[in-house]
């Protein structure tokens, strides 16, 4: 029997469920390893070599090297784990979140100060809000 996943029709949003978690296990555990200063240093010294120590897919490794967080999430990453890469890079959570939206850092910060992104038009795929794929430079995932 199919599982009930009513959250598949929310635009610009990937819910980190058991299926995503299974796909992203090694990617997220790699991120977790960056909690240790020694590992951060080794990763920074040779990112590719460090990634090759993990049983990640090539796509996952390339997404990490490119710091493409939307791609990382599509491949099973979870934002709280991916945030460890941002911490290693010296980025704030706001910089990381903003990097997924097609906005510049300043534009994203201004949007937040003005009260954040509206839910209007962003509740269901197919509406016309700013988080919909047709308003995003990188497109967007569709299930």
């Amino acid at each position: 029997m199919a599982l009930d996943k009513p959250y598949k029709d929310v635009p610009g949003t990937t819910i980190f469920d058991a299926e995503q978690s299974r796909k992203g296990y090694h990617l997220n555990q790699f991120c977790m390893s960056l909690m240790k200063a020694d590992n951060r240093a080794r990763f920074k010294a040779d990112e590719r070599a460090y990634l090759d120590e993990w049983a990640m897919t090539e796509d996952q490794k390339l997404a990490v090297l490119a710091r493409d967080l939307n791609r990382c999430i599509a491949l099973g990453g979870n934002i709280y784990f991916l945030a460890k890469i941002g911490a290693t890079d010296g980025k704030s959570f706001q910089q990381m979140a903003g990097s997924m939206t097609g906005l510049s850092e300043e534009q994203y910060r201004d949007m937040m100060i003005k009260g954040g992104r509206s839910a209007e038009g962003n509740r269901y795929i197919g509406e016309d809000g700013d988080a919909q794929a047709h308003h995003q430079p990188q497109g967007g995932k569709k299930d």
Partner: protein
Amino acid sequence: MAKITASVYTSHVPAIGAAIDTGKTTDPYWVPLFKGYEPSKSWMEASKPDVIFLVYNDHATAFSLEMIPTFAIGCAAEFKPADEGYGPRPVPTVIGHPELASHIAQSVIQDDFDLTIVNKMDVDHGLTVPLNLLCGSPDAWPCPVIPFAVNVVQYPVPSGQRCFNLGKAIRKAIESYDEPLKVQIWGTGGMSHQLQGPRAGLINREWDNAWLDKLIADPAAAAAVPHIEYVREAGSEGIELVMWLIARGAMDDVAGGPAPTVAHRFYHVPASNTGVGHLILENKQ
């Protein structure tokens, strides 16, 4: 017997902790936020509990994907502030209350809630930021704290109804403890925010405030809100609000007593990516 005197609800945004740790609380960006918690600090001074039962979530800090407990109760004698990748926060070690925590674990498990018992754990900003907001930055926290971690990272997270019912069981457990302790129960996280994907930055002030109204006056209705409504209206990380329902379910009125008094209510946008909500509810003496 022990008694729940009040419940406290607050967001636990990491950037608030960073602002405290780097001395930025008087920056224009942060002034309105910290001003909203001034009455809370005075209230805390006047209403100091013997123990705080603090419901929060771990953000891939103590729990990686190796183990994902839905409900975890901290029974240790102390809990160290975790290194979340920027070095541990310069805040006091959290002193636990192993006797009361073990008592609650035994009672609640016998009431059909299968808690995970944790005897060694570091605590992240989800637990320490609320303590700063209510207690400031003292050399030691004012009382012992029982950390209660809820999985809201990997879906499915527990339902609002499940959390509300768990709150009722925790109340029963606390009120059956022999020592006459004054216990506060805190629910943290939320309010609306989304940290991932092209929809990151979502904030829904109207929905947040309507939900606060409901939490105060009709908590059973707030508990009935399905997951998908949080995701759609309050963003994928807005789901953290289910943790507030654990604290709310432990209040007197839910067990047939009088309605609580609203000692303080505050709402502010933004703290970094998040809508910040805060509430203090007191049981009648």
